[in-house]
C-alpha cells in the first residue's frame, strides 16, 4: 500500500528561493563533538607540551580529526581549517610554528604568506578585495544552535 503524500505549500521568497524551517537538532552530533574534542586536545597539546618540538601528538590528533571528517563527510568551517597546516597537520601558532609575512604581488597588492615549519606555504591575497567575506561570514547563511 502506497502512502499518500501530503502536499505542502512551499514558502517562497520574492527572489524565488525556497524557505524552509531550520532543523531542530544537529545530525550526527557525536561526530562533531568528537572532532571538536580532538581539536581542543591538539590545541592544548601544542600549548602545554613544549618539550615535544615536533608536535608528534598534537599533529596526530589533528590528523585524526581530518580523517573523521572525511569518513563521516562532515565539513569544517574555514576558520577551523585555517588553523592547521594542510600538509603536516600542525597547529599554526604564530611565531612558534608559523611565520607570517606580508608580501606584495607583481601588481602591488598585498599577499599574506604563512609559512609552516614543514615548509608548506599558504597564501591569502588580502589586497585584491578588502571587503571579501567567506560564505559563512555572510549574514543569514549560518544558524547558531
Amino acid at each position, binding site marked *: 500500500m502506497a502512502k499518500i503524500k501530503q502536499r505542502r505549500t512551499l514558502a517562497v521568497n520574492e527572489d524565488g528561493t525556497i524557505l524552509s524551517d531550520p532543523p531542530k537538532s544537529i545530525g550526527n552530533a557525536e561526530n562533531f563533538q*568528537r572532532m571538536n*574534542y*580532538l581539536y581542543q*586536545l591538539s590545541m*592544548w597539546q601544542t600549548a*602545554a607540551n613544549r618539550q615535544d618540538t*615536533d608536535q608528534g*601528538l598534537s599533529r596526530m590528533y589533528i590528523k*585524526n580529526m581530518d*580523517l573523521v571528517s572525511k569518513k563521516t563527510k562532515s565539513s569544517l568551517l574555514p576558520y577551523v581549517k585555517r588553523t592547521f597546516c594542510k600538509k603536516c597537520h600542525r597547529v599554526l601558532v604564530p611565531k612558534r610554528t608559523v611565520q607570517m609575512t606580508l608580501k606584495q604581488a607583481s601588481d602591488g597588492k598585498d599577499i599574506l604568506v604563512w609559512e609552516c615549519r614543514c615548509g608548506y606555504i599558504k597564501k591569502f591575497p588580502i589586497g585584491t578585495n578588502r571587503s571579501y567575506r567567506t560564505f559563512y561570514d555572510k549574514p543569514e547563511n549560518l544558524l547558531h544552535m
Partner: protein
Amino acid sequence: MDRAQDFIKKCLFTKNFDDPNKPIAEKRLQETLLLLPTDGGNSSRLKRTKSALKISAHNLQNITEKPQKHSNYRTINKNSKSALKEYIVKCQKNTKKAHSIAHEQSLTTRDSLNDYIQEKEPQLWVSLIQYDKFLPMYENLWQGYIREVLDIPLEVPDPSKLKINTSSALMKLSMADYNGAVLKVVKCINHNMIGIEGIVIWDSQKNFIMVTKGRLVDAIKIIPKKGSIFDLEIPLNEEDALLYTIVGDRFQYRSSDRAGRKFKSRRCDDLAFYIREK
C-alpha cells in the same frame, strides 16, 4: 638425392660462407657470449667518484647552482606518524635513563630522584614525561567531552535519579574518542599487565599508548588491545562514577574507522581468558 640441397651449397653457400659444408660454425656462440669476470661495477663507480672529485669550472658551477634546501629539511618534513613514533621512543629512552640514574645513585624515593635530575641533568628533566602534565587532558578535557556525549548534566546531586538510555549510550561510547581517557587493565592474558592504569595519549589500531604513574618515574606504556579487558570510569560527582568495560579484542580498529562503524557480533572463543579464574 636432394637436388635442391646441392644447388644451395654450390651457388649460395660458396658465395657467403668460408666452408660451404658447414655454413653455421659450431663455436660461433662462444665468441660473442663469453662471460668475463667482473669486479661488481667497482671500477665504473670509482671512475664516477673520481670525476666528481676533480675540480673543474664545470663542477664548481654545478655546486653553486644547487637550490638551498629549507633549514632542517629532513628532520621537520616527515609525516606526523613517524614524529609520534619518535616522540614515544624518545620518552621511553628518557625513562630508562632516569631509572639507571636512580640505580647508580641508589635513590629510592620519587622526590629525591626528581631533585637529583632537576639539579644535575636539566636536559633530561625537561624531556622526561610526567603524569601530572597529562592530567588536565583527562580532568578538564575528556570528562567534559564524555559528559557532553552521554548527556550527563554538570551537577549530579543524586546519581540514582540519573537516567541514561543504555543502548544509545553504548552506541555513542563505541564511536567516542578515547584519547585522554583513564583506562585500567582488569583482565589480561599476560598477568603482568593486570592493574596498569594510565591516561591514553594515543589510540592506535592494536594498542593503547598510555602514560602511567610509576613508583619512581612516570613512563609511556604500550598495552596491546588483544587479549586484555579495560575498565573505564566516568565520574559523576565526587563519590559516584559510571563504570564501563571495553573488550580490547573487539576494539581493534583505527580510531578514525570507528567513527562510522557498527559493531557486529562475532564468535567469542578467544575470550576464554575472561571467565577463567587465575
